[in-house]
């Protein structure tokens, strides 16, 4: 197995490689903290609707595809593992294994999106899309359920946008990382992208119980 030297190209504003690595990670954590705040508002809204209208939420939850949600959680856990393999390989300079692990991570992300797309299709077929004014809403006699259903689409849609960005990043990074000399100059980029991917996984771990699981 061929290994390459690992490192990063020191930019002029940094004193050392370690400082550059720590600064990049701090920047990513700060960005992720703002992302967490963005999602938190929606999670709190979902919990408040659950508290105020438990029966309406249960009626909606019975229409949600619990097994698809659970399967998607497992898919993201597996994808996070693949990302960890990519990170560890990059630290050891194992370029080929790293690129393959990143491609597998992206493939699992695509599988997640396919399952999510099927779930949205089933919601459409079952008339669980209250924001589409030209279609009848299944729970039309229960206005509070509309709130929770809309929130379900907003939260899962926002997560799907983040995951799509993650898949794009993973593919671009795989392409860049497959070039000779990448790990000598930009190894920390793999770790930064890895943080983002783990965060997407973490957010879904909150989405699944909040929307699908609690008091369903």
């Amino acid at each position: 197995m061929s290994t390459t030297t690992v490192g990063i190209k020191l930019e002029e504003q940094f004193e050392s490689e370690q400082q550059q690595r720590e600064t990049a990670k701090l920047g990513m954590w700060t960005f992720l903290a703002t992302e967490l705040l963005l999602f938190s508002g929606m999670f709190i809204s979902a919990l408040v609707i659950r508290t105020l209208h438990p029966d309406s939420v249960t009626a909606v939850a019975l229409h949600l595809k619990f097994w698809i949600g659970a399967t998607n959680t497992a898919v993201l856990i597996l994808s996070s593992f693949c990302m960890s393999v990519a990170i560890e390989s990059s630290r050891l300079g194992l370029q080929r294994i790293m690129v393959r692990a990143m491609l597998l991570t992206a493939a699992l992300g695509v599988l997640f999106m396919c399952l999510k797309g099927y779930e949205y299709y089933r919601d459409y077929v079952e008339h669980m899309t209250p924001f589409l004014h030209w279609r009848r809403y299944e729970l039309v006699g229960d206005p509070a359920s509309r709130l929770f259903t809309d929130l379900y689409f907003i939260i899962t849609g926002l997560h799907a946008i983040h995951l799509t960005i993650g898949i794009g990043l993973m593919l671009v990074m795989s392409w860049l990382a497959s070039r000779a000399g990448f790990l000598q100059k930009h190894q920390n980029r793999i770790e930064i992208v890895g943080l983002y991917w783990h965060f997407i996984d973490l957010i879904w771990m909150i989405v699944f119980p909040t929307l699908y699981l609690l008091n369903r």
Partner: protein
Amino acid sequence: MPPELKQKLRTPIATMLVLLGLLSVNVILGIYFIHGWAWIPEVLITVTMILTVLLVAMEALHEPPLTRLFAFIGFCWVSILLTLTMMDYLTR
């Protein structure tokens, strides 16, 4: 696979197995214990899963103090938001 990579992958494999195990418990609770107090273990398991990803997979434990502070502040702010909001609605 090189032996040094096998050695390094022990923690990610253990993390994945723990997360899948916890997810299985949550799924079983979701299927067989639909109403009542099932939400308490479900929430506890979810928090455990979040902490596992945050501290082990995202390696927050090994970050420098300033980075750990930023991660802590983010989750601390969310905890305050959650606690105060739910305290209001649950005690009305």
